[in-house]
């Protein structure tokens, strides 16, 4: 299971001079100063930083949820923002997973997972089949007919990942997806996410404030500093895959984690 990152000709995501100001003209807040970043096809990039560093803002701009104040953002070679206007054709290659699973409580698990397909007009039987397949992929097979409230937090988050994968976007954007889970479930989910990523070959950008999660998952860690948010350092994580849970005791892992911890202490 050799994983070859970003040798493709065209990067999956390119940010050039992307900046964000919030608030009114009288009292503007500088959320993110001019940022350049390029994410390769199939790469796993983690955005790490203290609160207020603009990492969620950055992800939501890439996800088409908030418009950048300035700069140019392309997804799979397509311009995402035309001024304040989002270009729908560029969004179709993006799948988002949020900190809350955000499942619709009135839909069964399978209907939640198939919601994007329903919006695209896929026939019911075909949707169902796809949903069952995805349930197995994310490890919640057998729960297709349950209501979201009948599932644990970890299982709900698995369903949310399945929903984001349902229409097979090339890119997965994850905003602290395991932030609300307990430590044990979180470790299990990290392993699971790594194997999903290796199986599907998606490009993933994941936001977290957990150093160990960042080092465990990332090809590359983008460390952001606050006030205003900007990229501080970019750290490569050359630990081979698949990484097992005991990778945390490796010297390479601990060196990177320690360096990040010291840098984080310095900037926040």
């Amino acid at each position, binding site marked *: 299971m050799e994983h070859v990152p970003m040798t493709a000709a065209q990067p999956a995501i390119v940010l050039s001079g992307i900046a964000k100001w919030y608030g009114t003209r009288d009292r503007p807040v500088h959320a993110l100063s001019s940022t350049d970043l390029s994410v390769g096809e199939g790469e796993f990039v983690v955005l790490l930083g203290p609160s207020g560093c603009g990492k969620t803002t950055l992800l939501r701009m890439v*996800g088409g949820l908030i418009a950048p104040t300035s700069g140019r953002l392309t997804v799979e070679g397509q311009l995402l923002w035309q001024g304040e206007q989002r270009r729908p054709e560029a969004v179709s290659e993006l799948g988002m997973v*949020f900190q809350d699973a955000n499942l*619709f409580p*009135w839909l069964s698990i399978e209907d939640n997972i198939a919601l994007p397909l329903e*919006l695209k007009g896929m026939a019911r039987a075909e949707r169902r089949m796809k949903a069952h397949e995805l349930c197995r992929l994310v490890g919640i097979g057998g*729960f297709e007919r*349950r209501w979201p409230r009948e599932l*644990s937090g970890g299982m709900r988050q698995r369903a949310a990942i399945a929903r984001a994968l349902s229409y097979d976007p090339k890119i997965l954007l994850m905003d602290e997806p395991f932030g609300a889970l307990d430590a044990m479930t979180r470790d299990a*989910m990290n392993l699971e996410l790594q194997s999903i990523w290796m199986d599907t070959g998606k490009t993933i950008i994941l936001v977290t404030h957990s150093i160990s999660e960042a080092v465990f998952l990332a090809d590359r860690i983008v460390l952001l500093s606050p006030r205003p948010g900007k990229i501080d350092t970019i750290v490569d994580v050359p630990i081979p895959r698949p990484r097992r849970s005991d990778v945390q005791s490796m010297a390479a892992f601990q060196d990177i984690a320690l360096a990040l911890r010291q840098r984080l202490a310095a900037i926040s």
Partner: protein
Amino acid sequence: MSDLAPVGTPPSDVLARRQGLREGLLPWITTPILLGALIGLWHAYVKWSGISHFILPAPADVWTEWLRLMTNPRGWNHTYWTLYATLAGFGWAIIIGVGLGVAIARVRWLELTLNPFIVATQVIPKVALVPLFVVWFGFGVTSKVIVAAVLAFFPILTNTVLGVKSIDEGHRDVMTSLNATRWQIFRRLELPSALPYIITGLEVGIVLAIIGAIVGEYLGGNLGLGRMLIERMNAFEMDEMFAILIHMSMLGFLLYFSIGILRRLLIPWHGSARR
């Protein structure tokens, strides 16, 4: 490790529901007992106090009258007209209340513009307007339909506004990131999300609709249970008047429980439907 729980074990939620089922049986036992005790007390009071038949009739006499009412086609005709006025008024209240509610919740200037008028329609004692409606719309069923609609409209409107405004921002993000159209957002997110609130509005609204219809009948026309009740009262036929009162209450219960059934059918996923 709840995440990895084996598939065969029912989640705690299912167990809780079974518990709820056993608890749900309690009212079916206590209600008949309490009702029986109440009727017994009533019977005893009438029997021992020597109270006039024109003030409080004996339960047995009321029962006889009620049976007669139920077998009397005239009684059913009056029931039909009251039910008609209630449901027609309720229907209009739903159409206007939900429609206007969705519009108000989405369009800020519409809310600001209409709010004073909506509040005004509420603070005016509407029952006092019934004679006016009778003058404007006649002694027929139309004026009753309008009274029922005016009374039922407000709780449906306010609950719809609240429901559409309470939509989870995270859910909106999901629909936005999926490139959903405005219609899809309405049909797949806003409507189902607001439905529990709307149904709560309907529960209040249906009770007000029947009150509206009956009060409308009190004040004009010659049809409906309200009219029938006034006639019996004027004739000092207390047995029959009590029978009509009970008949009205049963109608109210029936309509209220129909909304409860609607709740279970439309929003089985919601906590309120699991009682």
